């Protein structure tokens, strides 16, 4: 992005205290881990002030200075806490080098409007740090699961070997357990059988109904819509309780059919929402033109309307699939031991016999959801392009 504001070097009285404060904070962290917090604060502040002075006043080249700093911190970290220390030290070194020159050269100001007061600049960056922290909160739990699934021990936390990046601390044994253990394999097979069937039911009924709902004159449209969306709104435990009572009356409780029907009902709102959203931008004159040229309604549907709303239908199908694939409350009540799905097995695993195989399964599921997310995003863009809502 082009710079908004001309930048100039800042005085020592500005960048020195700021880097010293950052150093004090880092020193506090290092100091507490070594058992001497206050000494850490003092040393950190002093060290950082000195380093930033040397970097800006003594060393001629920015690049050389920053690389030297990274190397020094890497070695220092290794001396203090071994391999993990070296990683943390290297990151600190990189950050402080960048931070010093960011302040010293006035780069922080370049992309901000020139009329901002110093306080507004400070708020701008603090706000970004707050948002960054929230993003970290959102993503950390998912990231933490992945390395832990390669744990060589049956622990749910990082072992010292893992922190030393010792290859002996890592293994694929939980993945092997998932692939060989018959309990997990049965659960996987059930999930793979139930989810596509439920998806097929909700997509075929849901697409038809969505087309009906988007016609210009539909009596009781609001009431019908509210009823069709309700499986998404009614708490799962209530749906599960009702289905348990009702399905055991009609003999569907504990059968594959019962679970598939229940999951199809839960997936319908997602299909309805995505397909009606696609149909909002659908040009009705296309179907009229097709009819005008002699196509019967069925041909019109399959040759004209279907290809255009396909992206919406597929993303609705993916939503319905993931709803069924992730669902645990309803299957817990409507199914019996024979219909144990993957989430159900994870749920019992979490409640009773805790085994890190759950984390291996979780990692696989995260990989699947990344794939699904990518597909849905691509479809959404394609659909917008097809309907001419966004260029390119």
């Amino acid at each position, binding site marked *: 992005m082009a710079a908004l504001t001309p930048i100039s070097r800042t005085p020592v009285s500005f960048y020195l205290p700021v880097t010293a404060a950052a150093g004090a904070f880092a020193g506090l962290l290092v100091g507490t881990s070594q058992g001497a917090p206050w000494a850490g604060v003092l040393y950190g502040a002093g060290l950082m002030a000195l380093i930033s002075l040397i970097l800006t006043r003594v060393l001629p080249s920015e690049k050389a200075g920053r690389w030297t700093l990274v190397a020094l911190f890497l070695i220092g970290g290794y001396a203090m806490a071994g391999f993990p220390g070296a990683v943390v030290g290297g990151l600190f070194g990189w950050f402080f080098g960048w931070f010093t020159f960011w302040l010293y050269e006035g780069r922080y100001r370049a992309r901000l409007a020139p009329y901002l007061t110093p306080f507004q600049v400070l708020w701008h960056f603090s706000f970004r740090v707050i948002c960054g922290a929230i993003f970290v909160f959102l993503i950390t739990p998912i990231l933490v699961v992945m390395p832990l699934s390669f744990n060589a021990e049956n622990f749910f936390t990082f072992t010292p070997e893992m922190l030393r990046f010792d290859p002996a601390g890592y293994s694929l044994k939980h993945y092997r357990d998932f692939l060989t253990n018959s309990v997990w394999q049965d659960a996987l097979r059930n999930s793979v059988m139930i989810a596509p069937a439920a998806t097929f039911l909700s997509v075929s*009924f849901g697409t038809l109904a969505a087309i009906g709902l988007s016609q210009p004159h539909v009596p009781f449209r609001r009431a019908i819509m509210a009823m069709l969306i309700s499986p998404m709104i009614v*708490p799962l435990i209530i749906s599960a309780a009702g289905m348990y009572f009702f399905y055991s009356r009609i003999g569907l409780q504990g059968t594959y059919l019962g679970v598939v029907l229940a999951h199809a009902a839960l997936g319908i709102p997602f299909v309805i929402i995505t397909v009606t959203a696609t149909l909002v931008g659908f040009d009705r004159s296309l179907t009229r033109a097709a009819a005008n040229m002699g196509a019967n309604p069925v041909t019109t549907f399959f040759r004209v309307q279907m290809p255009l709303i396909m992206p919406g239908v597929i993303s609705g199908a993916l939503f319905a699939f993931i709803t069924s694939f992730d669902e645990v409350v309803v299957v817990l009540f409507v199914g019996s031991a024979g219909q144990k799905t993957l989430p159900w097995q994870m749920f019992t695993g979490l409640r009773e016999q805790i085994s890190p195989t759950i984390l291996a399964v979780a990692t696989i599921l*995260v990989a699947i959801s990344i794939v699904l997310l990518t597909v849905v995003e691509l479809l959404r863009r394609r659909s917008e392009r097809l309907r001419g809502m966004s260029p390119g």
Partner: protein
Amino acid sequence: MSDQTTSGPVLAADGTPLKRSLARALRMQKLRALALIAPLLLFVLITFIAPIADMLFRSVENQIVQDTLPQTVEALADWDPSASEVPDEEVFRALAADLKVAVKAKTHTRLGTRLNYEMTGASSLFRKSGRRVKKMDPEGDASLKEAFIGIDKKWGEPEIWNTILTYSPKYTNGYFLNAVDMQKGPDGPEARPENQQIYMILFGRTLFMSLVITGSCILLGYPVAWILANLPTRTANLLMILVLLPFWTSLLVRTSAWKVMLQQQGVINDVLVWLGLVGDDARLVMINNQFGTIVAMTHILLPFMILPMYSVMQTIQPTYLRAAKSLGATNWTAFWRVYFPQSVPGIGAGSILVFILSIGYYITPEIVGGNTGTFISNRIAYHISSSLNWGLAAALGAILLAVVLLLYYAYDKIVGIDNVKLGG
């Protein structure tokens, strides 16, 4: 055109008046739309609406007493419960006859279980009497009253007779009274003793924790939605992945991740101990309590708050804020008087959605909630699968459903069902 208006109604090509022809076309269109919707409507009615209706029916259904003890209920109609006396011989004869039939059909234990919800000890009383009643002769001369009292003294006290009489109608509000910590007394509903009141506390806790979770979602979601709406599109799309990935990740994965993070030997405690912020012997207890439930559920529901807020904030022109500032408003005034009011619909939509979802949550509180962090849904599940008091479970569910439907109605009025968006 002008000469037609003078010569009667306008005619369509086939000679029918245009008005009627139009009405027919419209009717055809409506019918076609309904025909397209009908299969799904029928499907949802059978697989979803009927089960809910069945649950509501179960919350008031109480035919078991009348079905199992028909003669006793009839004989008891003349008995005066306020006299606090045991009914006379005739009622005991009817009871013996009913129990003989019930023991053959093996339904007397189920009746005992049912009455045990209302009066502790009824279950064993019926089981014991069922074993001994076979030897009795309802037609004989011996006093059956004394025989029954001989089996168990409880038959000689008015309490059991009161219970049978109170629960003899086919439909009862007893489960609902139970669900709000009340019981049926001889003179109408009365409050349960203090030490038996648990459901109002649970409902209160569920509401309170849902509010806290909604509040923290607003607090955390607002800055993120703002920055996503105000960054250049490319960067915003990249950051959006960080919001959408948790949204797409399995609920069980996120719950197990929080279990891993919050445990006493978990990642957060390990990091804190490594940093020296807490001692190894004083690890924080962050799981199996309200704190754990609130943190995990805030994380799980946060995308549902961010996405509606983001779609509303995208429509707010950034020029308004600049205009306010150039007219002399401070940063805070510009935000609070100009930007914030325009973003309120997004907050409203997100809050109702998060509140509805959190109030009925089951999985996460069950795994990270322990004893103090569980919701009313966990109690419902307990009554269905462990205590088998289905009527009470149905009544609790009906109350929860009423709350959620009220919120759903509000959501429909404020946001509109059609405007629900999924993903970006």
